[in-house]
């Protein structure tokens, strides 16, 4: 098993289910764009990996528009593909057979687990929460922000195989000028007993909300204690902006909105182009989950709120006045 520098850059395809069929998640297109930039340094091809049955066929045209030449369609026998140890062994098998130079995946909790195990299985260096990846002096170099977005670090991966987990919204997705027609390669992977010792005894997928996913949205409107449980103004502005709805720990603990909406160091970490916080004071745990956002807007009635220290545009005022007025003005500007 070798991993030459001009070996394929392999991208794990994340999906969600729409009308019963697997569809690519939007951040995958950003990943494919980054992968192409990384591959260009060594003239390497970009490959994709599909672990979900039917995904390779469903996604072939779309990944072709992003320059993918091979889609690896992996089956794992009677093992459960939802278990991250199983996914890790499937990825290790593909990386080995393809002689990959790098494996890229989105920085979700599941992919972090699979990547960590892939590192143990293959000896690959792993960097998570990346915002950029390139090759310098032959080495894969990854940018990431740490300490709640207050520092940027650049880190070289010194192993022949590099595993990089990339945050959503790291780069804009850009298709290629001349789409490719990817070839599909099937792989039947035999999963070890060790990867199957924990078993999935139940799995319930959450119904889609109709709004973008919080982790991957380009705009997020979030509500906190100041909403007093009334998210209508937050939701109205979110829908005008095509934004996802988020919340603070207080709001989710109060049951005003589901726990999956919690932004913070232990909830969802976001870095959208636009973050609007309404009735949010900006406690350190919340800031840790959103401080890397592009433009930060805060609306709060308390001028002493710490969120104003990091806001690009702060309004001291009542969110129930400011948000509906902003939504109305945005509608008017759009005509």
């Amino acid at each position: 098993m070798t991993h030459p520098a001009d070996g394929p850059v392999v991208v794990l395809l994340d999906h969600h289910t729409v009308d019963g069929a697997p569809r690519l998640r939007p951040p995958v297109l950003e990943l494919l764009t980054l992968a192409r930039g990384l591959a260009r340094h060594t003239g390497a091809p970009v490959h994709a990996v599909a672990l979900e049955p039917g995904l390779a066929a469903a996604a072939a045209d779309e990944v072709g528009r992003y320059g993918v030449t091979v889609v690896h369609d992996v089956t794992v026998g009677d093992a459960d593909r939802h278990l991250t140890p199983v996914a890790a062994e499937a990825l290790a098998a593909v990386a080995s057979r393809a002689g990959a130079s790098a494996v890229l995946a989105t920085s979700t909790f599941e992919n972090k687990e699979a990547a960590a195990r892939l590192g143990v299985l293959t000896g690959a260096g792993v960097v998570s929460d990346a915002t950029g990846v390139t090759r310098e002096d032959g080495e894969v170099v990854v940018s990431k922000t740490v300490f709640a977005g207050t520092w940027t670090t650049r880190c070289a991966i010194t192993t022949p195989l590099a595993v990089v987990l990339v945050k959503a919204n790291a780069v804009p997705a850009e298709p290629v000028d001349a789409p490719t027609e990817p070839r599909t390669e099937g792989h039947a992977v035999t999963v070890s007993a060790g990867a199957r010792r924990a078993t999935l005894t139940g799995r319930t997928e959450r119904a889609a909300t109709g709004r973008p996913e919080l982790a991957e949205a380009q705009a997020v409107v979030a509500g906190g204690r100041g909403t007093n449980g009334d998210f209508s103004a937050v939701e109205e502005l979110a829908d005008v902006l095509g934004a996802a709805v988020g919340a603070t720990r207080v709001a989710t603990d109060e049951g005003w909105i589901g726990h999956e909406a919690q932004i913070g160091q232990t909830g969802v970490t976001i870095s959208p182009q636009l973050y609007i916080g309404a009735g949010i004071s900006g406690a350190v745990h919340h800031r840790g989950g959103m401080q890397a956002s592009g433009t930060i807007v805060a609306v709060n009635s308390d001028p002493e709120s710490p969120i104003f220290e990091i806001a690009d545009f702060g309004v001291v005022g009542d969110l129930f006045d400011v948000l509906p007025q902003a939504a109305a003005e945005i509608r008017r500007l759009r005509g």
Partner: protein
Amino acid sequence: MKIVVCVKFVPDIQADRRLGQDGRVVRDGGDGTLNELDENAVEAALALAEAAGDSEVVALTVGPAGAEDAVRRALQMGADRGVQVLDDALAGSDVFGTVTALAAAVRRIAADGPVDLVLTGMAALDGLTSLLPAALAAELDLPQLTLAAEVAVEDGAVRIRRELDGASETLAAPLPALVSVTDQANAPRYPNFKGIMAARKKPIQVLALADVGVDPAAVGAAGARTRIVGSSPRPPREDRVLITDDGTAGTRLAQYLAERKLV
């Protein structure tokens, strides 16, 4: 039941956290603390030990001098004893170096009686990479049950419930196993005066790499698979605007967003 709970000493998130010129986290001790998310792991360990009876909870850390404060905090909460892997060769370890040292220490602890459960927090609040629990499970070849919002042990098996971005899952595995818990799993107990006094008498065993059979070249900067090539604080945000609503703030906000092509 014998439970090993892994804890990490991290810079206090309320303090001014920074990276040194070598790109590593500045750990000058004064503002350090037990990683808050590891308190949930300690609490889970104590609760499971209390439920099972006749159990031992060992708090384990890999870290420099000063990191025993994290172990001491776990002992104050109620862990029975501590183990610290302390060795100059560990400086600059990446997650896999840390995992190598932790796994070796767990095997050493298991040498005088099998370990049933290894518990960790969901992430460390300094690095937040969340890579360690899965890597440690793989290294120890233990069943991996991560991000538990609920955990229970019964009849030699562990069961968890976890909430992911798009799904809710339940997992089960026979012991021994590795479990990571989230901050939803429990409310960590606060050490009381009795606990703080008792912790003074609890032993913390300090082990060097040689004591746990780890080659120094496999860990630390020498064994790391990544190398920091640069780091810088994010430049301050410029042209910031703060207004008080005079009845037009919503309109001005919309115009601000439109000027920046954000609508």
